[in-house]
């Protein structure tokens, strides 16, 4: 247990990116349909604690659907998903339990526009974890400092740039002290100069040993922090490998085509 991932922000010393033997997420034979449309086909994916997975693939391949199944934003019809030992069923209690453990960051930030940045971050700790308000404020300020925007705490989301909003969204998720973080194209709605500030925060987070699943097309980020890159096409996992071999020596022809397309520009 010595190398179990810890998420306490006070210990941000960029240690070695350790991966535990313990399983954080176990997806077995996952199948999902939208009506008649088979979106996810026999997905098998095991993520160990502290592991960082990058999921990529062409548009419509089911990447978002896959990670949204993990915290039950989408229901699956076949197969099983187990998060931290809890199997996801339609039982609302279990769903809530898993959601407390799993943080999510969206492409369009989804901050609450009627609340200040600080209130955005303290809302869930106060109401879900029943944390006293003062303590919640302290925790929120710690994470806001970590994503480098403590000075914006009392502004409203609409007054922040896209990159700042996305960093708030990350801080908001971290305030719940999750064991797993899901990212769904966190930088694809951002201008190039803001992408870096968000990626920096994510790299920093990776270095603390957080278990992460990122849907992203930022290949530099994948090379730098991923343990594994998973390539999806038409609802199935086509190839999965460590970043070096994945980028330099892709095996499947769909992967080769995809990589040649996104690396072309």
């Amino acid at each position: 247990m010595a190398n179990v991932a810890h998420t306490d922000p006070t210990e941000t010393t960029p240690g070695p990116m350790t991966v535990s033997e313990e399983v954080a997420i176990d997806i077995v034979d996952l199948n999902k349909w939208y009506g008649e449309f088979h979106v996810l086909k026999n997905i098998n994916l095991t993520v160990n604690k502290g592991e960082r997975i990058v999921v990529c693939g062409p548009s419509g391949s089911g990447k978002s659907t896959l990670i949204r199944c993990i915290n039950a934003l989408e229901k699956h019809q076949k197969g099983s998903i187990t998060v931290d030992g809890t199997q996801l069923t339609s039982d609302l209690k279990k769903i809530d339990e898993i959601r407390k453990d799993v943080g999510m960051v969206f492409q369009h930030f989804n901050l609450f526009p009627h609340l200040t940045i600080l209130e955005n971050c303290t809302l869930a700790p106060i109401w879900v974890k029943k944390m006293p308000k003062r303590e919640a404020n302290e925790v929120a300020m710690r994470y806001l400092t970590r994503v480098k925007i403590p000075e914006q705490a009392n502004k409203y989301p609409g007054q922040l740039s896209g990159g700042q909003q996305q960093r708030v969204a990350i801080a908001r998720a971290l305030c719940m002290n999750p064991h797993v973080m899901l990212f769904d194209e966190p930088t694809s709605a951002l201008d190039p100069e803001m992408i870096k500030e968000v990626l920096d925060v994510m790299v920093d987070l990776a270095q603390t040993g957080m278990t992460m699943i990122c849907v992203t097309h930022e290949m530099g980020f994948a090379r730098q922090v991923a343990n594994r890159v998973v390539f999806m096409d038409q609802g199935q996992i086509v190839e999965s490998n460590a970043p070096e071999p994945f980028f330099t020596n892709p095996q499947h022809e769909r992967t080769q085509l995809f990589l040649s397309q996104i690396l072309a520009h």
Partner: protein
Amino acid sequence: MSGTHAHTVPYVAETHYPAEPAPVSTTGPIAWLRENLFSSWLNAAITLICLAFILWIVPGILDWAVFKSVWHAKSLSECREIIVQTYGEGTTGACWAVIHERLGQLLYGFYPVDQRWRPDVTLLLLITAMIPLLFQTMRPLVVVMAALIGVKILIAAYLAVTENTLGSLFGPTTIVAIVIGGLAYFFGDTHHRTRWLVFTIVFPILAYFLLWGGIILEPIPSSRFGGFLLTMVIGVTGIAGSLPLGILLALGRQSKLPILRLICVTFIEFIRGVPLITLLFVASTLLNYFLPPGTNFDLILRVLIMVTLFASAYMAEVIRGGLAALPKGQYEASDTLGLTYWQGMRLIILPQALKISIPGIVNTFIGLFKDTTLVAVIGLLDPLGLTNPIRSDANWNGIVWELYGFIAFLFFVCCWGMSRYSMYLETRLRAADRR
């Protein structure tokens, strides 16, 4: 190289331009007039035509309503005599004497005269209950109560000079106003707001006790309620009841449970598909057949229920519009953070959805408030219901404009107030979150 040089050659700025005030001709009242009223020939022409129209119509109205009006008379014919005697043959003027004589009835119906302080106090408490809902601090309450006391002192002074009495200066309303105003003055800050909200929750019970009596207060039967008091009772209850009910219906209509959804949709569509008058008739007559014999279910209470249900169906649709306007991401973010359904609704979804719906909500409120006049049809004596007995009184036979004008004025003040408040609220909320 100067800054105005066309950038046809490589260019690097060498000067830094300091900010200068805008040219005088583009700011100030003259500029405002020129920009808004006389910006083009067409605009100028429209402005002049409107001015001419106002000059033509306003003096006439003022002449009739103010300068040549009569406040003290026993009958319409006496009014006309006075006007002819003072201003000459052929002049017409308003006969406000009817309002003067019947004011008590128009405001309170047949509520016993010596008990009318009770509705007055209830109104003050209503204002007290509303302020913490409507505003951030209790300062407006201090202003209202101070203004009320000021007006009462003025009236008392006037009465002291003309009739040698102080009137009701030391009545219960004054005392209540002083107490509430004082409390609001000393405990009016934002952090006391929750305590005032507790009062808001207790208020309905208090109001019921004050208006209908019981225990130590003389009981007043519903049949004596009338006039603007009745309008307020129905309007305020309808407004206060239809908003929460409408929210629940709107949420139910979106629910994942098919049975609940079906119930809500059926209710909304049924109520919206039936005229309010029909529902009121059901309340006044048909309902008796369905109730166990011998039960005496108060008519006003039945009307209150019907009006509330009616308004809540419209409210539900307005709020559904607000819910639908929210991006799906807000629901998802609230879910992913682990908030329960009701927490998410209360903290994330409804504050935003209601804000979007404010214009529609206030619209429904105003409609409801004016629809209260329909109760005249089932024999309740709201201000409009009172016009018939007054006009069939031999003394006031033939009076039209003054009576309806006064009632219209009362309604206008209330509805316009709601409309202004909603505009204030929208500005306040918009200032809070600039998207």
